[in-house]
């Protein structure tokens, strides 16, 4: 392989391979992204209940005459370019996409990218925190239960993880709100939004505490499912690694159990878990639609839900594109990490 910048040293060659690999994957991501946006575009345009009809319902209070309603529909269609055939509309949308122009929201005429940029940090804060927590908790659990296989604690852990895995998160969220959020039952946690009403008057540390206190329930709901699946994978991976010849060799050399487990078995078992990161991110973004609506958190999930309800095409398209982009980046990062940690995998 010829490196684009022509460097010939061995280390540089390796780095160059990574760079070429990333470039090629990014190129491959383009048709994928086109496919995703095209499918979404066609589906939402074909579905009944156009934004033009919504405009009649919203703005046409008291309008009884069908002719006037029809006129409003036609005007709205023209305004948003909905009178053109779908392929033409899609090409127009793509043209604007190249300059990162997602158009303006039908609802409040604001720039779509601006609206998303406002909401994305909130959602990323939630999902990145819970991904971090998932790995922080799941890896020790996986290692522990694999090194204590068939013990009582391993069985208890396995069964509890299985239960966690099957618990619907919208049910858990509703239970939390019911039993820990006031009403007839305990009132431990706030169940609404990201900060309290008196947030502005709080001192710095009280602000931090207030924010964290608001995040406890939503993050728990987002975290436990991923936790269950990652620790299960972690356990299986460790069990496989422990049975390998090199672990037996390490034991035979007289290395301590700690070194054998953490230096030999663990390092090898962690590789496949890394790739799961890529599947976790889209799942979190999807899950945030429900969790954010339940806890009234002003993130992307809530924006997505609202834009679907109000048939806000530009916002729906913007969110689909950006979350697909994030997913593609996640998969790419996982693959690159995979290749970097495992020398057997070639980037060619």
């Amino acid at each position, binding site marked *: 392989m010829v490196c684009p910048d022509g460097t010939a040293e061995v280390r540089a060659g390796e780095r160059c391979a990574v760079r070429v690999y990333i470039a090629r994957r990014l190129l491959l991501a383009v048709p994928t992204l086109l496919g*995703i946006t095209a499918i*979404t575009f066609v589906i939402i345009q074909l579905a009944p209940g156009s934004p033009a009809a919504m405009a009649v319902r919203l703005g046409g209070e008291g309008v009884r005459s069908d002719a006037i309603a029809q006129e409003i529909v036609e005007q709205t269609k023209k305004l948003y370019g909905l009178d053109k055939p779908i392929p033409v509309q899609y090409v127009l949308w793509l043209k604007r996409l190249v300059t990162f122009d997602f158009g303006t929201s039908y609802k409040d005429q604001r720039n779509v990218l601006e609206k998303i940029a406002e909401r994305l940090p909130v959602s990323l804060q939630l999902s990145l925190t819970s991904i971090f927590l998932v790995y922080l908790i799941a890896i020790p659990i996986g290692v522990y239960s694999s090194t204590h296989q068939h013990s009582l604690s391993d069985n208890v852990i396995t069964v509890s993880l299985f239960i966690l895995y*099957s618990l619907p998160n919208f049910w858990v969220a509703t239970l939390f709100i019911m039993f820990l959020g006031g009403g007839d039952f305990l009132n431990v946690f706030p169940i609404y939004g990201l900060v309290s009403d008196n947030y502005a008057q709080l001192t710095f540390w009280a602000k931090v505490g207030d924010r964290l206190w608001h995040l406890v329930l939503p993050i728990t709901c987002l975290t436990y499912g991923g936790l269950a699946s990652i620790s299960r994978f972690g356990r299986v991976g460790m069990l496989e690694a422990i049975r390998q010849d090199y672990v037996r060799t390490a034991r035979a050399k007289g290395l301590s159990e700690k070194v054998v487990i953490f230096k030999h078995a663990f390092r090898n078992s962690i590789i496949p878990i890394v790739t799961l990161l890529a599947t976790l991110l889209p799942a979190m973004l999807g899950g945030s*639609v429900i969790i954010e*609506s339940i806890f009234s958190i002003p993130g992307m999930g809530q924006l997505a*839900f609202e834009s679907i309800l109000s048939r806000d095409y530009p916002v729906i398209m913007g969110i689909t594109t950006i979350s697909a982009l994030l997913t593609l980046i996640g*998969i790419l990062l996982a693959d690159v990490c995979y290749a970097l940690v495992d020398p057997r995998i070639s980037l060619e």
Partner: protein
Amino acid sequence: MKRTSQGYWAITWRQFRKRQLPMRGLVLVVLLGLVALLAPLLANNRPLIMRYQGTYYFPVFREHPRFRNVDFDELAATFEKGDFAVFPPVPYTPTQYDLTEHLQEPSKKHLLGTDDRGRDVLSRMIYGTRISLSVGFVAVGIYIAIGTVLGAIAGYYAGKVDMIISRFIEIMICFPTFFLIIAVIAFLPPSIYNIMIVIGITGWTRVARLVRGEFFRLKGQDFVTSARGLGATHFGIIFRHVLRNALGPVFVSATFGVAGAILTESALSFLGFGVPPPTPSWGDILSQSRQYIEFAWWLTVFPGAAIFLTITAYNLVGEGLRDAIDPRLRQ
């Protein structure tokens, strides 16, 4: 004595039976299936069997013109000597409402309480089983069909066909699936069939990848070569010979898939995009509970527990099946 060798499914069953938890899951799966099938016999305001003025009637099974507009509870009060009526265990239909009894806590009369229109929650949950299971099975049926055909074609023909299908699979994987499902469902008129179709169309990628892999593994084996030598068509080889050997993993995936589809359906109903009212579904009861979240714990706890138990049961069976078909775990 003649001993025949055991078939694939017999061996799988023997392996499956050895494990306790998956067997319990299977029992639960069968019970839930029975509840769904027998829902009208379990929750109904008409008696299963009734003797009235010397004649026997079976009002649940057959509607008698004589009792068309009769309230059987009132009728039972006028019974003469020798008359009797045996009601189903839950003597309410899922849509029968009584506003004077709305939002009642669980009691002897309404074992799991009532909702905001005074409908019996247990009766609604029994009928909700039908919605959940039918969505689970039909949706998974659809995506198994799509996934198997596409995966088989990709794996069998390889080359360019495989490249196109694989790219398509990759596109579907990067989709924010749940978001897409909500978007589509929100735009379509509410109906159970739309939910089944949308979950089916978005869920096939895992099966397709699985079948594709199995075909890559199997198509070079001797039995395929000999089938081809005997003049079998491509169609025959794919569906009669190779596919049959790839079905095990597909079944495992289908079992987990039913759990996933039930979860998706209840999440949709929870968000208000489920089956149209007054059809009862678990997610729908759960979503109603949000209006009375200060006190109506029975509207939250019971339907959620039903969803959870069903998902757990199918996941347990899936795990057991996966281990049972894995030759490495066989003793």
